[in-house]
């Protein structure tokens, strides 16, 4: 019985964490070696989880068919980014970037900061991307932020607040139709930290209107409290609590996020 259950589990485990490569496109571009490696990988990986040693061996086999198949290098790197092995993640991800810079460099850039606190490395990668592909709009590995916002948040993590603010401002101005789900929240909080209160309010109020998260209400409550407007502060805290309890908050399955609000902070604010 256990074996049958296990076999069923294996059959159901076909979903990978990031998008499959388009093998047919490789053939279209005339890269038959990469096409063969892709076909092989697509079939073989379906029944293996990224952390399995077998998963690594399958990637190696695909790479012996085609050593420049960047997707296989990235797949090899994935369990290591999640388990914090900076050495092996970099080793394999560097190969992925080498063979498909346009596709893989944004992921290396954003993972460097988020998983390893290598913010200077993230900025260097993003600047490399900007030089190689001027005018391209690329997203972070999980699609939450544009590379511009990753750069802004990296500057902030390094304590370069003004640079962070101008990078974020520049992005919002240049791409008004591509503003990310939490971009205004981060910019608003950075304005507040810099003492630029009217601009902070404007961003946070817009964030609350367009994509309500507990963190925006909480930040507005802090501003109201600093301005000694206790009634307004209380109103925002109530709103933050409602959003928080409804799960309308920053969340990530791997790490705590910049500006994420936690229960203890909310409880403290409710005592104001």
């Amino acid at each position, binding site marked *: 019985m256990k074996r049958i259950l296990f076999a069923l589990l294996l059959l159901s485990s076909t979903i990978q964490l990031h998008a499959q490569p388009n093998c047919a496109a490789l053939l279209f571009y005339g890269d038959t070696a990469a096409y063969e490696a892709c076909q092989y990988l697509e079939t073989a990986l379906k029944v293996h*989880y990224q952390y399995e040693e077998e998963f690594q061996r399958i990637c190696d086999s695909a790479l012996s068919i085609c050593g420049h198949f960047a997707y296989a290098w990235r797949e090899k790197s994935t369990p*290591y980014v999640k*388990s*914090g092995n900076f050495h092996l993640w*970099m080793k394999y991800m560097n190969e992925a970037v080498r063979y498909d810079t346009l596709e893989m460099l944004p992921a290396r850039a954003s993972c460097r900061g988020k*998983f*390893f606190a290598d913010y200077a490395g993230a900025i260097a990668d993003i600047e490399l991307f900007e030089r190689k592909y001027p005018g391209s709009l690329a997203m972070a590995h999980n699609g939450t932020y544009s590379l511009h916002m990753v750069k802004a948040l990296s500057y902030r993590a390094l304590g370069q607040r003004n640079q962070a603010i101008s990078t974020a401002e520049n992005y919002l101005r240049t791409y008004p139709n591509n503003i990310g789900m939490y971009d205004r929240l981060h910019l608003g909080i950075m304005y507040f930290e810099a003492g630029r209160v009217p601009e902070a309010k404007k961003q946070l109020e817009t964030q609350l209107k367009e994509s309500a998260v507990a963190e925006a209400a909480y930040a507005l409550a802090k501003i109201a409290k600093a301005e000694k407007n206790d009634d307004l502060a209380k109103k925002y805290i109530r709103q933050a609590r409602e959003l928080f309890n409804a*799960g309308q908050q920053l969340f990530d399955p791997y790490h*705590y996020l910049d500006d*994420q609000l936690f229960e203890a902070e909310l409880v403290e604010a409710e005592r104001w």
Partner: protein
Amino acid sequence: MRRLIRTFLLILLPVAAAAQVRPWVEAITYDAAIDSPFSLGGDANIYQYHNDGLGVNYRGDRPALHEALRKATNQLKFDSTFDGLVRVRFVVNKAGESGMFRTYVYTVSGEQAHLPAALLNPLTQAVKQLNGWQPKIIRDQTVHYYQYVIFRIQGGKVSHILP
């Protein structure tokens, strides 16, 4: 949003469950020579911290976790030329106890590196003394899981802590 992500991640759970019976990369096995007594209670299956899709699970969340780690490490003085990171990886068992700690050092360019034991031991110790890790539940079963802490070291001190 959080619920949406959770639902999506729950769909991924069978992937994690299936892998338990086969050898995994980055596995830690109990070594009586270096490990303090630590009980897995006869269940050798150890999941990853992200397999439940619910994020880091520490009592008091980031504020409590970082405060405890900062307090234990803010006196440490590193060689100011060292630019890199230290990862302490370990297992949280079903009782929320942590054990089987392994410590790794990397330079910022991704090379494996070394730091003097006088600096490395306090970092490992800082992680060992944490007492807020919560057990994780996957498909109604409490499970053991791997977790890690990363200390980013630059400018002669711990500059950032993850998660």
